[in-house]
């Protein structure tokens, strides 16, 4: 069957099983948009800014495990997607971005709305393509999906010149693709698996440290089985929350800069560490020189380059987390050995002592709304079963610390790049993927302003997202660092001239509620979630002075946590140098 390039794009998406595309039309993409007009197989969601298209596709991908798909035009259409592509790249999210390009004969001429899309996206994609011949179009799209969604996932850009979308060729979509230069492995090396099992079973102070790789690989079941079998403590990174249920008795909470005392201390004192689907990020490890000084590390990751990048690893295992954990469970089962019970009992009693510090306790108030309290109430009202997206800053840390995620793919945030503006558009992708589920966007008044225009998209598609705005009239995390490290010189961190969010929501056709008393928090949340078919913007006026604790300053070790404001005293912590 002979089709135009534009028709091939749409047919390829259908044959790939894509049900949703997030996009924004423009000159170079008009042939493709015309092909969208006369079909109903692939639904197109019109956003209000291309950045939001990438975040929405990203949220969709995180919530479903399927690649998110974006369609934009050339030039500014592409440059607006960069933040979203980089966000997906840093968190290893599968995404395919289809971009219109000026016609091939104009490429390089500084034509209207021309940018070097392949060049400008290269540092933040897993791979990218420029399609110069319509005959290569279907195969290239197939390759893009294959690369995006296998191995360590990531975004792939396909740049399609306008003339290529007009030309006709015979269409056939490849069922499978093989590439001589790309063949990700999934099974771990059996010798290494046996070494890992042996080392784990000999541990006296073990710790299991897992991250986004567990979520991406859908390995939560295997992780829970491993923790249950060994009775070892487990901590999750920001990206890995929900990998082990937060109410699991062996869960120590999140680790890292704003992790719990018990998680960080257990990391520091451990003698054997099983690290799965993590990359020893600086926000997790703190000062590498002080990182887990006595631990022998087993590192499981699908990306060989992640292993040994920041820390020395005793047992490296390259493979898919699900497959490797299955192999490890089998090796442990057939080893005929069991964990050292006495040592483990002593280790657990040490951990219980650390837990006694209650590092997540905060002072409650009858007067001011504590942001932590709002997140805890959100958990109660949604029975801990909502999809929670967030932006970046204090509210993100509070959501991570206090929501209590019991399932994977429920916590959706920009961990690696730290992108303000991610929360609302990613919530759109999640809500479209799961129309019947509760979706909350926990945000702050500074972050929400970065993609606020998407309230219009939410209205158009009837997305009943609940925006939980923790409004402290500051860029909270910036203010916190300025308080600690810059003698409270609040340089440009104050959000002056904020809009009336209730009026703003209502002008977009949504419901807005402002809450300024702690006693009204739960009622407002219940009211909002009862409105199943409405977006409700909840503007919580929170305590301005609240800070995120506990905290490890950048450059400090896991054993050097500051638990409460009084710990740091009047002496500011070391000025951040990193």
């Amino acid at each position, binding site marked *: 069957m002979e089709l135009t390039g534009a028709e091939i794009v749409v047919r390829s998406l259908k044959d790939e099983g894509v049900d949703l595309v997030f996009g924004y039309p423009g000159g170079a993409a008009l042939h493709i948009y015309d092909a969208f007009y006369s079909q109903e197989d692939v639904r197109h969601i019109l956003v209000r800014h291309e950045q939001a298209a990438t975040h929405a596709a990203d949220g969709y991908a995180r919530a479903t495990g399927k690649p998110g798909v974006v369609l934009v035009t050339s030039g500014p259409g592409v440059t607006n997607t960069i933040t979203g592509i980089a966000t997906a790249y840093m968190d290893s999210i599968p995404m395919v971005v289809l971009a219109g390009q000026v016609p091939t004969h104009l490429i390089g001429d500084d034509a209207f709305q021309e940018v070097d899309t392949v060049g400008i996206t290269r540092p933040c994609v897993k791979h990218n393509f420029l399609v110069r011949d319509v005959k290569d179009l279907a195969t290239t799209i197939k390759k893009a999906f294959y690369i995006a969604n296998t191995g360590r996932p990531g975004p792939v850009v396909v740049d399609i010149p306008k003339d290529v979308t007009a030309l006709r060729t015979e269409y056939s979509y490849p069922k499978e693709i093989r590439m*001589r230069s790309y063949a990700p492995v999934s099974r771990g090396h059996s010798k290494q698996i046996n070494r890992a099992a042996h080392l784990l079973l000999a541990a006296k102070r073990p710790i299991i440290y897992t991250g986004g790789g567990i979520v991406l690989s859908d390995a939560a079941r295997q992780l829970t089985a491993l923790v249950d079998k060994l009775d070892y403590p487990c901590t999750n990174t920001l990206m890995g929350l929900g990998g082990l249920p937060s109410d699991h008795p062996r869960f120590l909470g999140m680790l890292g800069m704003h992790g719990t005392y018990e998680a960080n201390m257990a990391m520091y004192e451990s003698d054997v560490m099983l690290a799965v689907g993590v990359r020893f990020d600086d926000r997790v490890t703190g000062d590498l020189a002080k990182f887990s000084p006595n631990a022998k590390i087993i590192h499981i990751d699908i990306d060989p380059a992640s292993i040994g990048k920041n820390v020395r690893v005793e047992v490296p295992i390259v493979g898919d987390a699900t497959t490797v954990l299955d192999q490890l469970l089998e090796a442990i089962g057939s080893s005929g050995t069991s964990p050292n019970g006495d040592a483990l009992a002593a280790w657990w009693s040490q951990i219980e002592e650390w837990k006694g510090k209650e590092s997540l306790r905060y002072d409650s108030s009858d007067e001011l709304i504590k942001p932590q309290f709002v997140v805890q109430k959100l958990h109660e009202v949604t029975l801990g079963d909502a999809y929670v997206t967030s932006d970046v800053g204090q509210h993100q840390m509070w959501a991570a610390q206090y929501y209590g995620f019991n399932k994977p793919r429920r916590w959706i945030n920009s961990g690696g790049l730290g992108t303000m503006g991610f929360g609302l558009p990613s919530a759109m992708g999640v809500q479209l993927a799961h129309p019947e589920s509760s979706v909350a966007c926990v945000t702050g008044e500074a972050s929400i302003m970065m993609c606020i225009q998407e309230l219009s998209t939410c209205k158009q598609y009837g997305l009943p997202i609940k925006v939980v705005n923790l409004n402290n009239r500051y860029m909270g995390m910036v203010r916190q660092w300025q308080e600690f490290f810059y003698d409270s010189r609040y340089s440009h961190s104050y959000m002056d001239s904020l809009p009336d969010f209730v009026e703003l929501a209502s002008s977009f056709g949504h419901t807005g509620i402002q809450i300024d008393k702690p006693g009204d928090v739960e009622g407002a949340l219940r009211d909002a979630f009862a409105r199943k078919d409405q977006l409700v913007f909840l503007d919580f006026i929170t305590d301005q002075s609240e800070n995120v604790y506990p905290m490890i300053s950048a450059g400090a070790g896991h054993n050097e946590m500051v638990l409460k404001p009084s710990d740091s005293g009047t002496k500011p912590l070391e000025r951040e140098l990193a």
Partner: protein
Amino acid sequence: MRRIISILVENEPGALSRIAGLFSARGYNIESLTVAPTEDDSLSRMTIVTHGSEQIIEQITKQLNKLIDVVRLLDLTEGRHIERELLLLKVIATGPDREEIKRLVDIFRGRIIDVDGETYTIELTGPGDKLNAFLDTIPSSGIVEVVRSGVSGIARGERALKI
């Protein structure tokens, strides 16, 4: 530690910028980089000379392997290998220097490939340190132009980089 890494990459537009971009984005050193076609039209061969600790070199090879266009990679310096570089040198050759330079070229087994009344143009191949040693013998005031190709290399014996 100096390393010579040979890479077979898909002969696609942009493959070179992916590799150069990787080095600049991650702050790795490139001492030299050469690219040329191979007997297989679909593949190019690159040779990169770089410096770094063992840990950095391991990261460089892993990050290179991660690039989708990289088909195969070999760290030549891990085994016995031959390293060659081409030097083209234009020098002022007048008065007593004219004879002296000719003698030096012979000692280093180079060739004079172009001559005029004022200058010699010299061709010399060999490992980088041989070229350096030769350049050290020429007074810098006499050098008009230095053109070096960057290093090419091949493994000795049966070891080979091919698909």
